[in-house]
């Protein structure tokens, strides 16, 4: 899909901007919802619950555990051609960036959502949301910069096992630092 000429030029920036905005939108919703959820227990309880939940999700990501996670099991329809070279990709990116409009082949977004919901202050939610959007945009930039034949996806699939391990370690490092503060 990213091999299409429509992803060249301003379309890619609009798409990445949409990813960022969508991720920030979801982080904001989680922050607001979390302000109510957190009233149910003291912060220390949430920290321990988060540590346990993130550990379980990390084990799922590594393939050690298998359990269902909520996700929207369908593809986002492409509006690129309907809404022009800027607003089409922007809307498409926004919907993907929210992470609630399509498949999520990883458990790490769920872990991030829980961290924002139960622990983040406004600045932390902003940082996590921006980071999430940038992480998703890295896929787009990486794919388009890697080659013009979409072989980046093949490289991902070929190294997926190790890539997921590296990402789980990185996620665990960042999460541990946040939880221990």
């Amino acid at each position, binding site marked *: *899909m*990213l091999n299409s000429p429509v992803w060249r030029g301003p379309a890619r920036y609009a798409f990445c901007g949409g*990813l960022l905005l969508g*991720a920030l939108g979801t982080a904001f919703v989680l922050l607001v919802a979390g302000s109510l959820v957190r009233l149910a227990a003291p912060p220390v309880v949430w920290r321990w619950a988060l540590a346990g939940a993130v550990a379980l999700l990390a084990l799922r*990501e590594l393939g050690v555990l298998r359990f269902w996670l909520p996700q929207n099991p369908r593809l986002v329809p492409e509006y690129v051609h309907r809404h022009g070279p800027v607003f089409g990709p922007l809307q498409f990116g926004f919907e*993907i960036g929210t*992470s609630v409009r*399509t*498949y*999520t*082949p*990883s458990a*790490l*977004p769920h*872990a*991030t959502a829980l*961290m924002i919901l139960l622990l*983040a202050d406004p*600045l*932390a939610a902003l*940082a*996590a*949301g*921006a*980071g*999430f*959007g*940038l*992480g*998703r*945009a*890295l*896929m787009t*930039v*990486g*794919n388009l*910069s*890697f*080659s013009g034949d979409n072989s*980046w*996806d093949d*490289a*991902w*699939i070929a*190294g*997926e096992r*190790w*890539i*997921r391990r*590296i*990402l789980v*370690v*990185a*996620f665990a*490092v*960042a*999460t*541990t*630092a*946040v939880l221990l503060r």
Partner: protein
Amino acid sequence: MGPPAIRRLVWHPMTIAGCLAGVATAAVLAGGPGFAWIAMGATAGFATSGSV
């Protein structure tokens, strides 16, 4: 950016994942909680690659 081989090495998904791990570690060592949140989000965001 550069010859194809270098470009493919730089933008290889494994390279990007390694860089994210490096950034996460640097964020912890630097002691900035904001950077740790960014690293956490970026790692989770990149992990969704393949869903589009």
